[in-house]
Structure formats: structure tokens, C-alpha cells
């Protein structure tokens, strides 16, 4: 960060940049973890499936086994390949949500009440969509 040019009147504070870099690294770690879990599930899936390709031509909602958290975790415990893939996807979906959480903490540290509140609104919308939205 010392390599950035002198920025006397820059409104972009050092703390802002530090938050962004930490968040960026966190996001990348989350994605790589999610990809690793999905890949593991995928290899297991391909090792076990010998039939013809699944047909996705007509939409039929996926079974509850793959649409809710608890059954997915049960599936992971029994090493169901598709449940493991779903776990990876859940980790992936959780990363941007956690990112907003991290921003709330960052803005709190900067004593930026306006942006603590704005981030909190975004987090509430995300949590609502993940848990309640129909």
C-alpha cells in the first residue's frame, strides 16, 4: 500500500483500502473453498453415475433434498455426491453475504454511522431473501 502515490486530499482513506483488500482476499478464499467442495462432489457424482445424461428439458423443481439446508447436510453426512455439490453452492452463496457483514464491521471501526446503517440494510435484504422470501 505504500506504493500508492501521495494522495493529500484523497477521500479514500487507508482504512477503506485495507477493508477492501481484506474483503477481496476473503471472497477469493470463499470461492476457492466452494469450488473445491463442488469439484469433490462432482468427481464422486461422475464416479457413481454410469447412465445416460440427465434430462433437463422439462422443468421440475429439484427435490427438497437439494433445496433446504438440513436435508442437504444429512446428504453430505452420507456422502451423497449431489448433496456435497449443494454444500459447495451454499458456501458460494454465503460468501457475498459474509462480505456485507465484514463491511458493517469495517464501517463501524471507521465510525461511519451512515454506511454502517446502509450496509446493515443490504444485509437484512440478503438474509430476508435467503430465509423468508417466497
Amino acid at each position: 500500500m505504500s506504493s500508492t502515490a501521495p494522495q493529500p486530499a484523497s477521500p479514500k482513506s487507508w482504512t477503506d483500502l485495507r477493508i477492501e483488500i481484506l474483503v477481496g482476499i476473503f471472497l477469493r478464499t470463499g470461492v476457492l473453498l466452494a469450488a473445491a467442495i463442488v469439484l469433490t462432489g462432482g468427481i464422486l457424482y461422475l464416479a457413481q453415475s454410469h447412465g445416460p445424461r440427465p434430462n433437463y428439458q422439462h422443468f421440475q423443481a429439484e427435490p427438497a433434498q437439494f433445496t433446504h439446508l438440513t436435508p442437504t447436510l444429512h446428504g453430505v453426512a452420507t456422502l451423497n455426491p449431489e448433496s456435497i455439490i449443494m454444500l459447495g453452492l451454499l458456501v458460494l452463496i454465503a460468501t457475498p453475504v459474509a462480505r456485507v457483514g465484514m463491511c458493517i464491521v469495517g464501517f463501524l471501526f471507521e465510525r461511519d454511522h451512515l454506511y454502517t446503517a446502509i450496509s446493515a440494510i443490504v444485509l437484512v435484504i440478503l438474509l430476508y431473501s435467503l430465509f423468508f422470501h417466497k
Partner: protein
Amino acid sequence: MTALEFSLILLLSSLAAGLLGALSGLGGGVVIVPVLTIIFHVDIHYAIGASLVSVIATSSGAAAAYVREGFSNIRVGMFLEIATTLGALLGAWLTTRVPTHSIGFIFGLVLLYSAYSSLRQYHEDLTQKPDPLALRLKLKGSFPASPGVQQEYVAQRVPAGFGLMTLAGTLSGLLGIGSGAVKVIAMDQAMRLPFKVSTTTSNFMIGVTAAASAGLYLRAGYLAPALVMPVMLGVLVGSLIGSRLLVRVHVRTLKIVFALVIVVLGIEMIVNSLTGKL
């Protein structure tokens, strides 16, 4: 075709989509949905589910690289995410109500528009009087214009930008795409933010916007694990390679070729929707 062959072909197609999406700046989602529906005859609900997940992966995967460049603005991004996430809730809800062919038709129009916008020349207009609302919301910043020089900027026309962002979020939720093109319009055209700030902040916002639709997609059963797996991995790897290449490749010719491909896919989506083949 066996499950293994199908997965491998999907992996390679998604890799190509992610690569082209990163090189053209349009993102992988805009390509992968037509590829899945037109070439692989996948129902559009499964296709937008697989695409949305890939969009989250690409956005979050690239975030670390973009942040280091010092262009993205977290305050602008966070403020506008209120608009995009609310729009995404609406869009995702619409997917459960709107008939399949309408989704396909709107998708086609968005493809045609994206092709046009990827070729559009952008303007930089930094001579502006401060917008009081933008100042109160701290929607300003500075970016490295040239080595050692920080260029300052303040957002303009905040309500227009906010409105366009709600539209971007709705399209993201409805079509399972990042809506990068519309997000950039909102920031670059309406709010007059510098182009580089608009594109990098847009990329940063895409993951959060997509996460807002993901919950509904999940509960509505749009995420088919065996289909999402090769698509998400392929698009992620492709876009990471693409963003590395971006610094070395001359993109102008590639952009034109890619825009033509997008136009063909867009027309195909519209025709298929109108003839009821989707």
C-alpha cells in the same frame, strides 16, 4: 450421451463462455444461458439457476484483483446494492410467475442490448458541479488517473442511478445474469462516474446482487446439482484465465466478433421464444 460426456462438454462450453465473458467484459452469464437452452435443450429455469451461481463465483473470484487496482468504490457499491438487491428479489419472484417464453424473449433483448453496449464508446466527463445528495451520501472518491496522480470525482444524478440499478437488479434476478451492462450504464451514464470506477465497482456488486436471488432460486428448485457443477467450475476457471489474458490481448477485434456471436444468440432466443420452442 452419458452423464460423464455431458458433464465434460458442459465444462468445456462453460470454460469458453467464462473466457469470452471476461475478455468482452459482459460476464459469463449472458453467454451460458443461451448456450444451455439453445444447444443443450436445458429448460430456462435450470439454465438461469446454473448461470446465477456462476455469476457469484466470477464476481467474488475477481474481487481481490480489482480491489488492488484501487478503482472500485465500496461506498458507491454498498449504497447502490440496496437498489440491486431489492430489484433482484422482485426479479427472482417474477421467474416463478412469468411464462418461460417471456423470460426467453426478454433475455434476447438484453443480449442485443449487451452486444451494442460492449462496443459503445464511453465518455469521460469529470467537469461537473457537486451533487448535494451525492455529497451527503459520500458518493465520491479518487482513482489513479496516471502514476502519482489521483483524479477526484463526485457522483451525479443519484436518483436516476438508483432507479437504473433497481432495473439492473430485477434483470439479474429474472435472467440469472450479472447485469453488468446495465450496472455500468447506471454508474457511467447516469451518475457520470469514471468508466474504470464503474466497471470495477459493478463487478464488486454483482456477487451481492446475485446472492439476493439465490435463496429463491434454491427454494424454487432451480439449482440442479449435477448441471450446476460443470457450469460453475467451467465459468470460474474460464473467467480467471480471461482476466489474466485481458492485460495482454488486444480486445477490439475480439469484442466485435463476440458482439456478433451475442447478436446471433439474442435473435435465436427471441425467435425460439416467439415460436414456442423454448
